[in-house]
């Protein structure tokens, strides 16, 4: 027997994670889908001969695959594919930007609450508990209806209703990491509290943070579609996947394709981010195998 067969290959943590991730077929498929959706939304509009807001009353309700309009036209004769791509820009950006803001706030609050504990921690976490008592959609709609709707407000409001769950994850991680040797060593070295928090503790909690970030993009895209569908988010003539469905219900009988395309786009994007998050969870931390 050759000795080579008995040798175990030592992989760097990053390599091991990549190997575990690669085995997760659906996560890979999710990642590929996300890349396609992003590229399609970013460059697709340049390839189309139609502008997403160009109104052509003579060509209203053209069904898909009839003539030049691949996905048909809507109630104002606008090209559905062009609107889908421009809507993708809006919906995907909201998802990613809202996630980034929510992560920043959540990490900040969670790290402070977990590190200092005591009164500060209790006050911050009770605040988080209190906000989590409101069903996210109720809070989001109340806020969205009272403020001037738009890209900026919608993004900020979604972030405002999404950071709490991140704060909870980070708080729990930081609270337990704080007691570990490397953290105590950092204290002994005389590192400042801020340095310990953000150079020692938070980087060590990166695995669950990255997973939470991915799942939060999915949540943000879904929330955008809810708010815009109900008319309190992105306002026409600008397109988003959510507001394209806003009018679709009225034309359900005569032009069902108006509802199909945006719905599939949302489902595809959200499913992809969810699978990606699931795969990352398996890859980055085999121990936290939550169903």
């Amino acid at each position: 027997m050759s000795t080579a067969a008995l040798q175990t290959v030592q992989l760097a943590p990053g390599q091991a994670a990549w190997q575990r991730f690669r085995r997760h077929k659906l996560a890979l498929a999710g990642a590929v889908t996300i890349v396609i959706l992003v590229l399609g939304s970013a460059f697709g509009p340049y390839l189309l001969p139609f502008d997403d807001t160009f109104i052509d009353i003579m060509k209203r309700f053209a069904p898909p695959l009839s003539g030049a309009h691949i996905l048909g036209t809507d109630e104002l004769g606008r090209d559905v594919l062009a609107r889908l791509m421009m809507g993708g820009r809006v919906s995907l950006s909201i998802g990613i930007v809202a996630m980034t803001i929510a992560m920043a706030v959540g990490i900040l609050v969670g790290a402070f609450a977990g590190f200092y504990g005591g009164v500060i921690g209790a006050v911050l976490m009770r605040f988080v508990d209190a906000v989590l008592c409101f069903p996210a959609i109720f809070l989001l709609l109340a806020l969205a209806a009272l403020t001037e709707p738009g890209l900026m407000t919608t993004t900020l409001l979604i972030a405002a209703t999404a950071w709490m769950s991140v704060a909870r994850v980070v708080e729990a991680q930081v609270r337990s990491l704080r007691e570990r040797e490397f953290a105590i060593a950092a204290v002994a070295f005389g590192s400042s509290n801020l340095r310990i928090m953000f150079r020692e503790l938070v980087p060590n909690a990166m695995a669950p943070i990255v997973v939470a970030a991915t799942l939060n993009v999915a949540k943000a895209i879904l929330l955008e579609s809810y708010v815009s569908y109900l008319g309190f988010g992105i306002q026409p003539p600008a397109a988003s996947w959510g507001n394209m469905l806003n009018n679709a219900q009225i034309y359900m009988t005569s032009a069902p394709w108006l509802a199909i395309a945006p719905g599939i786009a949302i489902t595809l994007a959200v499913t992809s981010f969810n699978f990606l998050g699931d795969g990352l969870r398996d890859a980055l931390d085999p121990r936290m195998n939550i169903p």
Partner: protein
Amino acid sequence: MARYVANRLMQAIMLLVIVSALGFAILHLAPGGPLSQFAASAQMTQEDLDRVTRQLGLDRPLPIQYLDWFGRMVRGDWGRSYRDGEAVLSVIGSHLGATLELMATATLIAVLLGCWIGVLGAVRRYSLFDSLATVGAMIALSIPTFWFGLVTIYLFSVKLGWLPSGNRHTIGDGSFLDLLHHLIAPAVVLALVETAIWGRFMRSSMLEVINQDYIRTARAKGMPEWRILTVHALRNALLPMITVAGLQFPTLLGGALVTETVFTWPGMGRLFLDSIGYRDYPVVMGILMFSAMMVLIGSLLADILYAVVDPRIRVG
């Protein structure tokens, strides 16, 4: 036990006070203000507006307004709707039934279906069924509820004509069967996400149980497999689901809001949206408070119930 309950109750009440202050602050600090609806009317002069502001006490400092509102709320006076002057609690009360009906039916569907999927997935782990259920659950969690509702309406109301496309009753028909007929589609739509979540948690809970010693003992005694699963495993696997039910409550309530909109179901969610449109602050605030209260009571009940049925949970 009594001490545990009292303790949890105190925590919940404290949280509720924070929740109320937060809700009040959010609504009243948002631009626009409670009177913007009136101000938009051409017949309102500035004088009228000032008078209404004074009459409603909106010229006082915010903390005073809050304390006043909170004091009344505790005594059961939640204010009056700006729209029709009806008491907020009775407005909520008249819409609550429809929402609870929808939520209860959806939960029933989700629990039955979710438990079945979860148990089967755990027993036949890594089988084709299990893989399909896992992927299916992930997709179910990713479909926008309102879009699933639209597709359901298109398929079963427009194309097949089997189910009504909305509302709670056919006009002039108040029978139970008619209600049931109208309830099917929205309840199934609302149940989709819940089923996925129940299935996932049930699977992992069941997996934990069926690998334990007492199950092996039961097998060794020669007990039939169905009896092991139903009598021994399922009973214990269901315990943690009490917590899941409590945690799921906010999602269920939010889903109900969206479902009610799509199916024009006359419940609290639709009331909330209508009230937002009218800037009916007292009703919006009332529903926010009421839903937060329901969420808090839900999680409180779940915690207490769990401690009651599972003696392993140490209380104190």
